[in-house]
C-alpha cells in the first residue's frame, strides 16, 4: 500500500497524477479557441466577442480589422498572430469593463479619436483585475493604455506612440488611475503628453521602460504611495520625472538624460516624504534634481553629471541626506534659496573640490561648500546667468568660500571624497 507521501516522492507518479487531474479539470472548463480571420466565420472581433463564452480564447490572424465600439465584459484571451491590425478609424478604442483575467497580446492597434470630454484610449480597462496587456504596438493614439479602478495588472512589452509635438491634444501613454498592484515593465512610450502617469496608484512597480520625447513628463506620480520605479530611461522629454504629493517612493538605477528647457528638470520632487533615491544617473539636464517641500529623503550613490544645476532645493526641505554621490562637471552643484539648512551632505565626490588630502586617506582634509554665492544671485535675478564663468563671479564665490556670510555655514560636506565613487 502506497502512502500519500510515497506518491509525492515518486516524481513520475506525481507528474502523472497532476496531468490527469489537470486534464480532468480542463475538460470540465471546456475553453474553446475561436479563430478570427478575414475569410473565417467570424471575420470581425465584434462578432467573435459576442460569440465567445467566458474563458474562451480568440485567435486573431494577420490582417486588417476595422472596428468600432468594441467592448469586452467577460473573461477572454485575445491573441494576435503576426500582429493583426485593429483600426478604430479615429473613434473610441477597445474597452474592457468589469471582466477579470483578460489577456490582450500581439496586436497593432491604431487611430484612436481625440475628445475633449472623454478619455479615448487604445485599450481602456475599467474595474478589471488580473489583466495582462502584452506585446502590443499602439500608434496614433489619444491615450494609449488607460487603467481605472483595477487591481493586479501587468502591462509588459508594449510600444505606445502618437505624434504630439507642440500640440496638447494628446493624452498619456500609460495612464493608471485609482488602482493598485500594477506592474509596468519593458514598454517604450513616446510622443505623448506624459509617458507614464500614476494618479492614486499604490503598491506598484515600473521597471525597464523607455520614455522619450513626450510633451510634458516621461513619468508622472500624483498622490501615489509605496511604489517603486527602477532601471527606466527618461530621455529628452519636456521634463523627466515629476513625483508629486506622494509617500514612500523608491527610485533606483534610472537614467535621466537630456531634459533641457527653461523650467525643465531630470527629477522633480514636490511634497514628497520618505523616499529612497539610489544609484540613478542624471546627465545633461537643466536641473538634475529639483526639490520642493520634501522631507526625509535619502540620496545615495547617484551620478550627477554635466547638469546646469545638479540639485536645486527650494522651500521647506528637511532631512534630505546626500551620501556617496558623484557630482561631476555641473555648472552649479547645489543651489539653495534660504539661509536655513537641515539637510546633510556626506562622503560625496565633488569634481570642483579644490582641497587636498595630506594624510592620503582618500578624504579631503578641508570641507567642501557645495553652494556658491552666485547661485543665490541667479535665483534672485535669473538674467545674471550671463556672468557665469566670469572672473568677477570667481572672485565673488572665492570671497564667500573664505568667509561665508550669505550661504548657510553648516552646509558643508566635511568628508569629500578624493576619487569618484564607483
Amino acid at each position, binding site marked *: 500500500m502506497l502512502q500519500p507521501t510515497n506518491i509525492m516522492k515518486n516524481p513520475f507518479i506525481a507528474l502523472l497524477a497532476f496531468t490527469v487531474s489537470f486534464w480532468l479539470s480542463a475538460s470540465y472548463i471546456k475553453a474553446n479557441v475561436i479563430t478570427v480571420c478575414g475569410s473565417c466565420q467570424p471575420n470581425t472581433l465584434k462578432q467573435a466577442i459576442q460569440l465567445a463564452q467566458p474563458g474562451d480564447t480568440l485567435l486573431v490572424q494577420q490582417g486588417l480589422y476595422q472596428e468600432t465600439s468594441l467592448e469586452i465584459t467577460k473573461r477572454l484571451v485575445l491573441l494576435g498572430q503576426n500582429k493583426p491590425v485593429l483600426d478604430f478609424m479615429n473613434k473610441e478604442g477597445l474597452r474592457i469593463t468589469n471582466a477579470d483575467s483578460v489577456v490582450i497580446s500581439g496586436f497593432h492597434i491604431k487611430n484612436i479619436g481625440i475628445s475633449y470630454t472623454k478619455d479615448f484610449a487604445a485599450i481602456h480597462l475599467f474595474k478589471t483585475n488580473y489583466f495582462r496587456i502584452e506585446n502590443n504596438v499602439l500608434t496614433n493614439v489619444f491615450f494609449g493604455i488607460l487603467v481605472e479602478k483595477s487591481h493586479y495588472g501587468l502591462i509588459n512589452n508594449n510600444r505606445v506612440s502618437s505624434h504630439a509635438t507642440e500640440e496638447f491634444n494628446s493624452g498619456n501613454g500609460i495612464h493608471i488611475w485609482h488602482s493598485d498592484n500594477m506592474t509596468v515593465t519593458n514598454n517604450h512610450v513616446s510622443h505623448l503628453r506624459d509617458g507614464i502617469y500614476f*494618479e492614486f496608484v499604490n503598491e506598484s512597480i515600473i521597471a525597464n521602460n523607455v520614455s522619450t520625447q513626450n510633451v*510634458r513628463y516621461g513619468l508622472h506620480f500624483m498622490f501615489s504611495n509605496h511604489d517603486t520605479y527602477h532601471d527606466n530611461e527618461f530621455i529628452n522629454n*519636456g521634463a523627466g520625472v*515629476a513625483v508629486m504629493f506622494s509617500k514612500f517612493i523608491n527610485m533606483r538605477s534610472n537614467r535621466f538624460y537630456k531634459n533641457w528647457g527653461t*523650467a525643465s528638470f531630470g527629477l522633480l520632487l514636490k511634497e514628497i516624504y520618505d523616499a529612497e533615491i539610489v544609484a540613478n544617473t542624471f546627465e545633461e539636464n537643466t536641473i538634475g534634481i*529639483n526639490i520642493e517641500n520634501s522631507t526625509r529623503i535619502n540620496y545615495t550613490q547617484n551620478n550627477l553629471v554635466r547638469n546646469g544645476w545638479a540639485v536645486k532645493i527650494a522651500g521647506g526641505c528637511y532631512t534630505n541626506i546626500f551620501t556617496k554621490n558623484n557630482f561631476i562637471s555641473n555648472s552649479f552643484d547645489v543651489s539653495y534659496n534660504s539661509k536655513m539648512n537641515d539637510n546633510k551632505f556626506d562622503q560625496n565626490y565633488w569634481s570642483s573640490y579644490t582641497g587636498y588630502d595630506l594624510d592620503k586617506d582618500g578624504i579631503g582634509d578641508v570641507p567642501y561648500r557645495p553652494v556658491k554665492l552666485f547661485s543665490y544671485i541667479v535665483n534672485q535675478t535669473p538674467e545674471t546667468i550671463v556672468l557665469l564663468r566670469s572672473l568677477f563671479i570667481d572672485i565673488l564665490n572665492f570671497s564667500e568660500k573664505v568667509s561665508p556670510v550669505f550661504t548657510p555655514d553648516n552646509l558643508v560636506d566635511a568628508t569629500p571624497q578624493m576619487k569618484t565613487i564607483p
Partner: protein
Amino acid sequence: MKQYFAMLLLSLAATACTVSTKPINYGQEACHFCSMTIVDRQHAAEVVTNKGKVFKYDAIECMINDTRKWEKSDYENIALVVINDYSNPGKFTDAKTATYLISEQIKSPMGAFLSGFSSANEAQKVQHEKTGDLFTWDSLQEKIQ
C-alpha cells in the same frame, strides 16, 4: 523729434502697466503653485494683479489654493481672475461669474475634479451628462479646502 520721443515714452509706459490677461504658452510654462507644466486647455487659470503681474496655474484648484495663502494686501491687489471655459478649450472667462462643476467623471490636473463654465446652461448640460454638483465662485471657496 521731441514729440516722437514723448510718444515713444508714453507707449512704453502704457505697455508696461497694462492690466490684462496674457495667453498661456501651453506645454512650456509651469504652474506658479504646483510647478507642473501647463498642458490642459480646459482647466488652466490666471491671476493678474493691479500692477499687471501675471500668475498662471494649471488648474483652478491650484489658483484658489495659492491665492488663499497670499498676504492680505497682495490678495486685495488682484485685478483679474480668469479660468478656462471647459466647453471652449483655451478660452478665458471671468472666474467670479463662472459656474463650476465638481464631477468624479471629469478629471482636473490636481485631483479636485473641478471644471469651470462661462455659461450656467452649458454647466447644467454637462452636469446632466456627467453627474456631479454645481457651485458659484463663492460657494466654491468653501468647498475647496
